[in-house]
């Protein structure tokens, strides 16, 4: 048992930051994210027999994601879980600046708050794809949706993030005036 635990720790503790980052983005609270991550590792360890090698990172993050959602369901309904309806929120604020133009100290901060304004299902797919580099196939497994949904959801998530980013920046600019 001790040897199995050590092997598990060697494999999965290197993903601790990734696990925490994802949990933090889903539940949006430090202590809660820590609890989610702890529970994740416990669940992962219990289910270690079911891990058949392959992408350990994707496997662990899938558990983080499920644990975080359980957590959200347990702790009061999060209104952000309500599916986002783009048509109703349609705002033509597009991302029109090129990468070069927006290199500024504030970019990180703006991205951060833009991402925070997204619905949970958009936040998580952005993190899992852009940051954690899961493939569409792995995303489909992690999110429990068909590959077609992965494609459209990621696409919508990006468009929405661009909108929020542009909004954050323009309101910042307006305040700065």
């Amino acid at each position, binding site marked *: 048992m001790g040897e199995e635990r050590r092997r598990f720790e060697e494999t999965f*503790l290197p993903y601790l930051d990734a696990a925490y*980052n994802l949990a933090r983005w889903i539940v949006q609270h430090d202590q809660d994210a820590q609890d989610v991550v702890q529970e994740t590792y416990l669940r992962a360890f219990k289910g270690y027999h079911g891990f058949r090698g392959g992408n350990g990172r994707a496997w662990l993050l899938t558990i983080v994601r499920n644990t975080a959602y359980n957590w959200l369901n347990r702790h009061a309904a999060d209104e952000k879980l309500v599916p986002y309806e783009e048509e109703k929120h349609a705002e033509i604020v597009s991302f029109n600046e090129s990468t070069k133009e927006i290199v500024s100290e504030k970019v990180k901060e703006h991205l951060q708050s833009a991402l925070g304004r997204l619905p949970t299902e958009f936040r998580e797919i952005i993190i899992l794809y852009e940051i954690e580099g899961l493939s569409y196939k792995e995303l489909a497994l992690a999110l429990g949706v068909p590959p077609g949904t992965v494609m459209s959801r990621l696409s919508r998530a*990006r468009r929405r993030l661009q909108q929020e980013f542009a909004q954050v920046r323009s309101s910042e600019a307006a305040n700065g005036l």
Partner: protein
Amino acid sequence: MDCDEARQLLDAYADGELDLTRQLEMEAHLAGCPACKEEAERIASFSLLLRTNMELYKAPRNLKSKIRSTLRKEAEPAWLFANARPLAYAFAALVLGFALAWTWLTFYQNKDQELVTEAISNHARSLMVSHLVDCRSGDQQTVKPWFNGKVDYSPPVVDLTPAGYTLVGGRVDILEKRPVAVVVYQRGKQVINLFIWPATRRKVDLDVQSERGYQFCGWNQAGLNYLCISEISGDELEKFEDQLREHVSL
């Protein structure tokens, strides 16, 4: 491929997730559609912006050690720790039970031991100083009334002559600091001292045993304790007990 279809697939194209057929179709479309091409570039550049500027949350320092200790606990033998709390209670109850039983047993064994030792001394003394009986009579009708006024209860005095136990008489002795009735029987040349007293404080229950060459046994019946001591064999003492119990219960 037209623009509508292309727009649906642009993200997947930018991510390199299109299958080969679709990818070729997309490339053909983009070659002839600047608008879609621009959109594809925007997607790619935003993705790049995101990847290079996204601030990631780092796990707090102590989280790793917390997880390690959680896992260590989990890795312990499951039967021991899965239900640690109820098990601990059960264990505590068991220990307490044992302690009580032990106390009870030793306390009462000591009590019994004291009683037997005292009764044996009485028995031995009764033989030594030829002070066996205060009332010598083989007649139960004489012995039984003799106890009236000497003890505050009425000990049964039964005639066991047919069974081979001759009634010798009665005596009052001291046992556990109180006067008790002793009915004396004889089998051959051996004397049997039968101590009888009310079982108010506790009930005597002793199987036939031997000590210092004497056999003894005790029981309680109808609110009285009986303790008999003799040099006759254990088997014979047991028979004596059986006979007596039978007569008393009549």
